[in-house]
């Protein structure tokens, strides 16, 4: 890299703009660091200049400098004009700015503006952040005029373009009238999928000499995003395989296999097994949520319930509660479930068990047929069960579907979320965008036949077949997640 770029020091870019337009937010999103600086709805939150670096291929490519907001451009431009008129000498832009920086006003009323201009003068380019929801006011034009005096390329960046109140088109026209034709739309809270790439591309067009390293940065970011997505899909796939392969054996008419409870304890044993498997599956799902949050570098308290019972970074619900399933738009198989039908459903499930026992179990389950049907059973287990008196519980398709839908939804939310976002992640109920068609269930059915593939049953090491299934599932999941609907927004 250092061979191809003429200068080896990182490119210095000042992030400037009016107060409260999201400069620090932009830095947070670009550096994927939700801890950078301080962000609030109040103006003048940042009052110092702070730099941070971006690297590509391990090389520092860009130093980004967060600056305080410009707040008093009208008066400052007035001062600059008065200083020019007062001296009578004709200085160029940077010299005029330097004269202002040397004057006493730069240390009193315009201290904040002076910091911005000092940093801009020392930078190779400036990104001028605009809150696209604001109208094009005269003071913004004055700010751009002052920045133009610094004689560095200025890239206007329209923030909050995804907001319904955004005046993006008006801003584009106004900037064109000011001679600023290269600009970029970049929502720091919900950046388009290729937003960063476009941002660096635009910067590269302004900075001809450093174009190569900026493009390398753009490529590196795209590659990292792809790898992150694949890793995330693999995490989800692994969780699904663990759950699909999971099996719990319950002693028929007794306790959980090996516990040797009497026949009278059957419903208790089944209920306990249900509670146990529910808890373990939820723990496994939580492990996946934590891993996804960590992977995308979000904090656990970034996630919020919304309509789904999800709080403190965890889903608070019973996986086997039909309401949980229907909340995600998953249709639960079976039809009218009431009264005697519940017992019948359990009876079907248990095969050899008597109707009486089955009805008792159905009563304890409470959820009726819909709950009961979520536990299927393999024929071979059934045959063995009739001999050994053991029953096998496994997690039904609809629960797998729920887990897959939730995790893929979370993955999409995380992938599209800027690190500037201060609102908590809200998960919505409704139809999952993940299509549960043949391929997904075929793949997971393969896991069903291998209880030893589940981390819930035994610790997992290197198992080429399990790994292959996980890779296939991950590939499928990352493909089946829809393209970013607003992905083209960043383009002009």
């Amino acid at each position, binding site marked *: 890299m*250092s061979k191809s770029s003429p200068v080896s020091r990182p490119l210095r870019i000042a992030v400037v703009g009016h107060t409260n337009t999201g400069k620090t937010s932009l830095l947070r999103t670009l550096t994927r660091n939700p801890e950078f600086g301080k962000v609030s709805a109040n*103006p003048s939150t940042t*009052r110092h200049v702070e730099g941070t670096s971006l*690297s590509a291929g391990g090389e*520092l490519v860009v130093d980004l400098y967060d600056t305080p907001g410009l707040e008093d451009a*009208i008066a400052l431009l007035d001062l600059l004009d008065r200083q020019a008129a007062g001296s009578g000498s004709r200085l160029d832009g940077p010299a005029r700015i330097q004269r202002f920086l040397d004057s006493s006003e730069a240390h009193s009323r315009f201290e904040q503006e002076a910091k911005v201009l000092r940093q801009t003068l020392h930078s190779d380019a400036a990104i001028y952040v605009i809150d696209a929801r604001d109208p094009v006011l005269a003071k913004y034009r004055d700010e751009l005029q002052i920045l133009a005096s610094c004689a560095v390329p200025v890239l206007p960046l329209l923030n909050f373009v995804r907001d319904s109140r955004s005046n993006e088109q008006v801003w584009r026209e106004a900037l064109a009238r000011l001679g600023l034709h290269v600009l970029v739309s970049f929502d720091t809270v919900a950046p388009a999928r290729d937003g960063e790439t476009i941002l660096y591309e635009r910067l590269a067009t302004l900075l001809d000499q450093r174009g190569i390293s900026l493009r390398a940065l753009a490529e590196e970011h795209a590659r990292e995003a792809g790898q992150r997505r694949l890793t995330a899909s693999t995490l989800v796939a692994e969780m699904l395989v663990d759950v699909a392969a999971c099996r719990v054996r319950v002693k028929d008419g007794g306790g959980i296999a090996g516990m040797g409870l009497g026949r009278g304890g059957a419903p208790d044993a089944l209920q306990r097994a249900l509670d146990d498997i529910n808890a373990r599956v939820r723990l496994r799902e939580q492990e996946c949520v934590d891993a996804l949050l960590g992977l995308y570098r979000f904090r656990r308290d970034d996630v919020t319930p919304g309509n789904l019972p999800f709080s403190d970074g965890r889903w608070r619900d019973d996986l086997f509660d039909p309401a949980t399933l229907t909340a995600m738009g998953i249709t639960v198989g079976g039809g009218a479930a009431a009264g005697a039908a519940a017992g019948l459903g359990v009876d079907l499930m248990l095969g050899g068990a008597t109707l009486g026992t089955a009805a008792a179990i159905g009563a304890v389950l409470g959820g009726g047929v819909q709950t009961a049907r979520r536990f299927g059973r393999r024929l071979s287990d059934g045959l063995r069960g009739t001999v050994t008196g053991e029953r096998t519980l496994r997690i039904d398709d609809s629960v797998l579907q729920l887990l897959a839908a939730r995790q893929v939804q979370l993955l999409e939310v995380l992938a599209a979320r800027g690190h500037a976002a201060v609102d908590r992640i809200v998960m919505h109920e409704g139809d999952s965008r993940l299509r549960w068609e043949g391929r997904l269930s075929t793949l997971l059915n393969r896991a069903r036949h291998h209880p030893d593939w589940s981390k819930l049953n035994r610790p997992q090491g290197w198992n080429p077949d399990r790994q*292959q299934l996980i890779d296939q599932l991950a590939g499928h999941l990352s493909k089946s997640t829809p393209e970013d609907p607003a992905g083209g927004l960043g383009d002009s």
Partner: protein
Amino acid sequence: MTDPSSPQSATPFEAAWLTEAVRLRELAEGDVMAYTDALPASDPAQQQRWLQKRARHIAEVEGLAARVQGWRRNARLVLGVLLALALISGVFAALGFFGAQNREINVLWTLIGLIGVHLVALLLWLVMLLFQGGSGGGTLGRLWLWLVEHLPQRAAPAAGPDYVMQALPAMMSRSGLGRWWLSAVTHSLWLLALGATLVVMLLALSLRSYGFVLETTILSPSVFTDFVRGFGWLPSQLGFSVPDPASIAAALDASANQSEAVRRAWSSWLAGGIVVYAIIPRLLVWALTLLRIRLLNKVLLPDLALPGYGDLLCRASQAHQNPGIVDADRGPYSMLRLTSPHPVAGRDALLIGMELHNDVSWPPFPASATRASLRVGEVVESREQRRAVLAELALSPVARLLVACDVRISPDRGSLSWLVDLSAPVGEIAVWLLGVDNAAGAREQVWRDSLTAVGLAETRIMTTPAAALRWLNHE
């Protein structure tokens, strides 16, 4: 090295394994472990080496390296046992056909017995390789892996995730090495077994005398002639002999006394078949597999785009180079204050707007709602407009000035200082916040805080048209 159990200590394989384990650990636990060696700048190859060195250091501190060693020990142990078993089965396979009781060798039966299973296994391996994608690697390799995985692990962590064992499949599947390692094990075992068979067979043929027969119940002699010639063609290219028709006839005739030449021809034909159709193909795929592993070892260098590495490298280089705070906050800015209310002759009032959104209708009141003493000015934005308003107020001061501000636009020092400028010539100034209902309450509070900070009384902040009009009309 031929398999992961190679005794060499710092193989690319082990280095990659440890690096991946440390990456998974840091990704999952979020904490970055200390490592003092400076990151070499800019060269990706050097950075990959740095990552591996760092991982080795951390793995040794955290006991991950011992876990890898333990696995490798198990792998070696299992491989050793399997190799011994392969040797024994090779020997016994040969003895089964060339044993003490056996003086008559049924040539074809022996041939099928010695190489038939092997050919089927080889074909199966090839099919698995071509159609099974990431999986495959041969049954014997699978058996080896299964045994290794099920052997108790001495250095397994007592609690928490086992990053070492998570790293292995992840690394194997990403690099595509897994099936080749398994293949290498499979081929090594077969090669040893076949070699043992050949040696024992040659030993038996050298030290004992056998008669060679071809037997059939339903086949015609011409089938044997064709087969023996066709099968022997390839070995004959390497110098193995093919029995002539007379030898074949002699073999078919159980009562015939076979000459030494005929026996030697059959021995050579049999040995040639095993060498050419079993050992050489297996040797070829074995060499191919090792070559493949060699090539893929290059892929074992850490991919810098993998999650975790980017942040790590960035942090490591920033430790020396991150600019940090370059122009510090020097405390709160000195704020100007509004001129306090002072008497101005008359009851004239003026309403102006400041930096409003386009969707705000201006003037805000119908003309009928206002008195003669109330004037509604324009919406002020630019420097020129600001100057014009100040000039006008200097000429004809008003008792009350109401400035309408848009709550959706952030208050800034520029706007506030202009309010301060405005407060000087007028008797009293107040601010009307527009759009309070459709903006978040937080935004309104920001305005209120800013305005009170410059000295505006809370009572002089209006939010409704009625309140604004009442104040302007001195009601």
